């Protein structure tokens, strides 16, 4: 079935079809219509779930942690300041190894108040032990949410997953989305079988004081699980492709086989970059595109190109581009652009321009430092 709707409504639909049983959420622009729709699903009886109308995002994540620890599939959604308020509990969810799935609608951080797209909110959470996925279309939003449950709940992974997409650019833009039948989704994503849970018949204590040698081991296990997740993400993406005709993996490559330069970007800028690649190809430029779908785990092994131009909508102050710096030293010729901050429009023409600048050996903040 083709549904034409916004990424936010598509998120709510995906959470419903994934059969999330406890949803705890707090409204924030531009995520609001996700939770409005879910509240409607629950109140109308379309979705058999408990909806907890919490008083903050910190409590939203906490309630999800507790419900997930009870062995129940959960969902939440947030953006920007809401995600930042959750920060402590994001770490908690990661360390507790609870496969919570959350949508983050990327939005700039204040002051001054800015509701437009910017990935600094989720980028600032990259060390919390969550799987981070970025989407470039509403279809990808739907597919990624369902797949995220399967990846996160895999006993080889058991880590929470964050699905990110740009505020307004996707969140409030209607696009056609192919939605499979519920029975096909149920087949793909069976009921949640937790590895452990809070149970009165088996009274364990979860999260009490832990000595350094145990603690270090638990942390190490998270890193190992992140590495294992790479394989699971590829496998689940392939299975999705076989069932529903759209292949996924850690990255999506476009015209990279013979490319001299590869543009690497994320989220909706990847959709724009695809147009830029076609335009440049028409002019005879041998350029390709890597859409970095997965930022954690970081798929270095899929990024073995000689010349990469990174375009990213986030910055680490005092360091520079985040993805750019993560790749530094691993790519022989690397260029980094910071663009689209605070929702500044980045069109395919801007991306073409950044490509030209890189060829001239220039990079930096676009269009502030270089244009």
């Amino acid at each position: 079935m083709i549904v034409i709707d916004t990424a936010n409504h598509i998120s709510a639909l995906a959470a419903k079809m994934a059969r999330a049983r406890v949803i705890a959420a707090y409204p924030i622009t531009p995520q609001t219509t996700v939770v409005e729709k879910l509240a409607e699903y629950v109140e109308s009886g379309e979705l058999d779930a408990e909806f907890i109308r919490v008083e903050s995002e910190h409590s939203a994540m906490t309630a999800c942690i507790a419900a997930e620890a009870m062995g129940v599939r959960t969902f939440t959604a947030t953006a920007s300041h809401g995600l930042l308020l959750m920060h402590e509990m994001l770490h908690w969810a990661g360390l507790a190894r609870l496969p919570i799935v959350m949508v983050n609608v990327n939005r700039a951080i204040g002051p001054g108040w800015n509701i437009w797209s910017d990935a600094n909110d989720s980028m600032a959470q990259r060390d919390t032990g969550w799987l981070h996925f970025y989407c470039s279309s509403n279809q990808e939003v739907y597919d990624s949410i369902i797949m995220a449950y399967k990846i996160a709940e895999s006993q080889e992974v058991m880590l929470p997953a964050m699905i990110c997409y740009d505020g307004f650019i996707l969140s409030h833009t209607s696009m056609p989305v192919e939605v499979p039948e519920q029975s096909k989704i149920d087949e793909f994503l069976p009921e949640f079988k937790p590895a452990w849970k809070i149970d009165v018949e088996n009274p364990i204590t979860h999260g009490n004081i832990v000595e350094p040698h145990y603690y270090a081991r638990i942390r190490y296990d998270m890193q190992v699980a992140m590495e294992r997740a790479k394989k699971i993400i590829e496998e689940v993406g392939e299975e999705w492709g076989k069932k529903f005709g759209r292949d996924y993996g850690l990255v999506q490559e476009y015209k990279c086989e013979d490319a001299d330069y590869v543009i690497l970007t994320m989220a909706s800028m990847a959709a724009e970059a695809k147009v830029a690649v076609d335009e440049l190809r028409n002019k005879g430029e041998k350029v390709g595109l890597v859409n970095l779908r997965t930022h954690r785990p970081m798929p270095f092994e899929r990024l073995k190109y000689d010349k990469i131009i990174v375009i990213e909508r986030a910055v680490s102050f005092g360091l520079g581009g985040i993805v750019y710096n993560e790749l530094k030293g691993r790519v022989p010729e690397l260029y980094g652009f910071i663009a689209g901050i605070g929702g500044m429009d980045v069109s395919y023409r801007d991306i073409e321009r950044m490509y030209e600048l890189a060829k001239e050996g220039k990079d930096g903040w676009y269009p502030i430092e270089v244009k």
Partner: protein
Amino acid sequence: MVSDRGEIMAIKDLPEEEYVLKGHAACPGCPATIALRITLKALGKKTILVIPACCSAVIQSLYPKTSFGVPTLNIAFEASAAAASGVASALKILGEKDITPVVWAGDGGSYDIGIQALSGALERGTDFIYICYNNQMYSNTGIQRSGATPYGAWTTTTWTGKKERQKELAEIVMAHHIPYVATATIAYPEDLYNKMKKAKEMKGPRYIEILTPCPPGWRFDMSKTVEIARLAVETGSWVLYEAINGKVEFTGQSKRILEGKERKPIEDWLKMQGRFRHLKQEDIEKIKRELDEKWEYYRKVMK
């Protein structure tokens, strides 16, 4: 003797089951352990404890062991009531009707950093029992002032004595119109047990606050814990009541005081505690005045 409703008349009637097990890490004379032991005897096996950062996070002992005989979910300092909402919703989805989610939090985690989550959980009608064991300070971090610390008390962040009055969290909780609010202390275990039992039989948000005098924090000998708790009630510094659907009934010694029995002099209680050693006569007069006002309020407004 145990009544039809499971209420007891004396300590000897407490059930034999123990859920606070040997080997826990509490200080000698710890009141929180006494309170939890009685609480869990009343609530029984079908209890899920949610514990934020507080002394009880340490008392339960180190991973991979535990000294608590009921499932326990530790959670961040400010988050326990929200976690209870998550547990309660999960129980509903799982169709579990006779398991009680119980928050066991200190006064720091309840009066201060956790008050937002607590208020939220009460307002949205979470089906749980929230228990605040109140030792009137941040004891786990080493005796710092909290919103529950009384006027004049020395702490490591009020070296010359706290300059402000404590707030009354149970009264703030009552403003949420929840089915059950009660106060208790460890000196009256039957009263504490019976209030827990009563709370367990009810639905919706229930709040019980237990005064737990802390020997190292209040600066008294570890053999005096129960005595100090009893004197807190007899001097009127702590008050015992319960409110069912907003109707307040004073209980035990507090009821007797309200009916005219004279309060013991507050000095008797203050002088037993090193934290009040520095108080001047004018401080004591101020404490007395405010105590009188408090009891006037109980008589005229709350009763």
